[in-house]
């Protein structure tokens, strides 16, 4: 399940999408809108993406993860548009016969997605101001 959606993510469906009797372990990561960042209060987030390339890159991450780890299945669902406080913007799920691979691949997937998939996040602060989020590392993306 590799999807970009503009409504609430059905997190339980993402989790179930990687279930299998072959697997003894599954890891689900969810990222959601956090109220406070460095003392400032967020009203909501707004996400925008380059749809065709974002999906292509997410499929590439899926493929690399399946090659690098012994995982049975992997799902990545990202939400775009406005995401209210506490709501989920990203869900990543992996499953594998043994748990180490599920943990490592899920963490790699979210770390790498944040660095390479063309999706952008704008903070909408409670004081009414807005700001495109700049990742810590401002160097251009490198081809994976």
């Amino acid at each position, binding site marked *: 399940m590799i999807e970009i959606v503009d409504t609430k993510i059905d997190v339980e469906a993402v989790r179930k999408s990687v279930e299998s009797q072959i697997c003894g372990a599954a890891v689900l990561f969810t990222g959601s809108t956090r109220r406070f960042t460095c003392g400032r209060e967020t009203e909501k987030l707004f996400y925008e993406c380059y749809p065709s390339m974002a999906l292509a890159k997410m499929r590439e991450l899926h493929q690399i993860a399946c090659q690098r780890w012994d995982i049975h299945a992997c799902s990545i669902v990202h939400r775009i548009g406005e995401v209210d406080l506490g709501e989920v913007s990203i869900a990543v799920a992996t499953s594998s016969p043994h748990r180490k691979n599920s943990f490592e691949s899920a963490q790699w997937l979210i770390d790498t997605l944040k660095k390479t998939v063309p999706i*952008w996040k704008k903070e909408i602060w409670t004081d009414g101001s807005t700001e495109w989020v700049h990742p810590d590392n401002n160097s*251009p993306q490198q081809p994976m």
Partner: protein
Amino acid sequence: MNIKVQLFAEAREFAGALELEFDLELGSTVLDLKDKLIRDYPQLESLIQRSSFALNDDYGTDESEITEGTELAMIPPVSGG
């Protein structure tokens, strides 16, 4: 050749446009494109220096050659997740 560069997020807001359209010489590279963009839109220079450029849904390098019909996009630092 006539080319279009899709803009997203900060780049789109800065330029006030979803895409920029202009002429490039045949055989131009991403570096040529960046030089041209900076000449035409000096207010975008800092963001262009921090951005990548995508060709047909994949990241290019400064040396990547642009051909007729290449789907081009300016990719400011990403912040998904």
